[in-house]
């Protein structure tokens, strides 16, 4: 097959493919999940959890560790120092949050790790 024709076809397929993958990504976007239903098989996926902030731990390196609880369980939400700086004092008095982040495992425990300030919404 001539190189030029191959280039055109592969360009079209790549473009169409990216659009399909984008649509698939939108379709599989995370929705709010019960904390108790999260398990280690879901590590690496993006999840959304919502619940009451029952503990707030400030690390000497500037990280903040929230413990968020709903009626099915609780989970740690680490907010690393660079994100904590961007969030500022917005969460200091927050009693209920909605957090979107990547589900990770750390020392046998699951954590939801937000990446951007907009990933944590104070509900109350």
């Amino acid at each position, binding site marked *: *097959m001539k*190189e*030029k024709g*191959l*280039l055109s*076809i*592969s*360009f079209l*397929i*790549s*473009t169409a*493919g*990216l659009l*399909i*993958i*984008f649509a*698939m*990504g939108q379709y*599989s*976007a*995370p929705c709010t999940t019960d904390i108790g239903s999260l398990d280690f098989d879901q*590590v*690496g*996926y*993006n999840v959304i959890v919502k619940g009451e902030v029952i503990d707030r731990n400030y690390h000497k390196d500037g990280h903040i560790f929230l413990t968020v609880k709903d009626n099915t369980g609780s989970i740690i939400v680490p907010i690393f120092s660079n994100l904590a700086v961007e969030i500022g004092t917005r969460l200091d008095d927050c009693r209920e949050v909605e957090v979107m982040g990547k589900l990770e495992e750390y*020392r*046998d425990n699951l954590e939801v790790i937000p*990446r951007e300030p907009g990933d944590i919404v104070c509900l109350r």
Partner: protein
Amino acid sequence: MAVGVFTGLIPGIHVNTVIVIVLAMSGALLEIFGHQALIAFIVAMALTHTFLDFIPSILLGAPTEDNVLSVLPGHRLLLDGRGYEAIRLTSIGGVGTILLASLSLPLLLVLIPILYSGIKAYLPYILMLVLFFIVFSENNNRKRFYTAVLVIYSGIFGQLVLESNILNPQVVLFPVLTGLFGISTLLFSLNLNSTIPPQWFEVHKGWYFRGIIGGTLGGILAGVLPAVGSSQSAVLIQQAMKNENDERDFLVALGGVNTSDSIIAILALYIIGNPRSGASIAVEKLVPQMDTGGLLLILGTVLFSTFFAVFLTLNIAKIMILQIERIDYSRLTRGILVFLVILIVAFSGFTGLVIAAVGTSMGIMAHASGVRKSSLMAVLIVPTIIYFL
């Protein structure tokens, strides 16, 4: 080590898969074998894997995340009758970096914490510069244009696939990289009616110091910094080795990055207290407080295993090359393509097939436009840049 041979030779099977099983059974295994034996098992397996996994990458065009850039120079050497030499070069890199890292361990104990805290802030900008360099180092405007398109497309591809829930994160890289670098190369070979010439087992003699040093430095970078893997480090090294004669040094460096990354990631547990790989996470679970005794056990296992890993790699490579020579290459290529598609479907389903197809079309774009396939590494580099920004 036997398990490392198995995971290295079979595309799509990674040491992390075995580690998950080991950890699930760790209670019983610890009672039978003890901590030290299990740690030695994990380290030996991880190390052996890094030597053996170049064999399917170079001979079959089936790369993993860690050795993906070996496909093209390795494939070129294979089509030049020097497939054995390509694999040998990666083994030289592995051995060289292990020896260099062992000898410079006191320096690494000082350097790694500095690197960890110092470079992290500048890493996204360094990687951006690398992407600019990949584009502008092409020798005419037409190629620069196509390279830029491929960098943008593969960067978007990586960000869409790796940062969404479209596929299980544990398996998503296999269809991505197999499509971009494996299937596309094999399809293009079929299109060109490539044949495997008789293979030589005589090799070009050399010391490859540049490759060994580059591999060690790249391995340190990949082993210490989060979200930076052997491939991203390899792209940085590749930019430093631009001449045709550097292809051998590059394969040495790649072998070195792959092996030293796996070991430095475990050493990072002792030096900075953070695990950086599946194997190091497993070691941390078995020994929560890494001490000097643990460090010495790991070093001893590494040095002991390296000798056997190289012996196995070179001999298995010879056997496989002798078999490949007897087979019609286009039939072999078709067989490998079918095998890879089956693996993709088995591990990642129809979604993985769609992802592999998109990756394949981008890989073919690179071949058809005559630009370097390292531009497709944006699939991992762009998500890394975004992670650090």
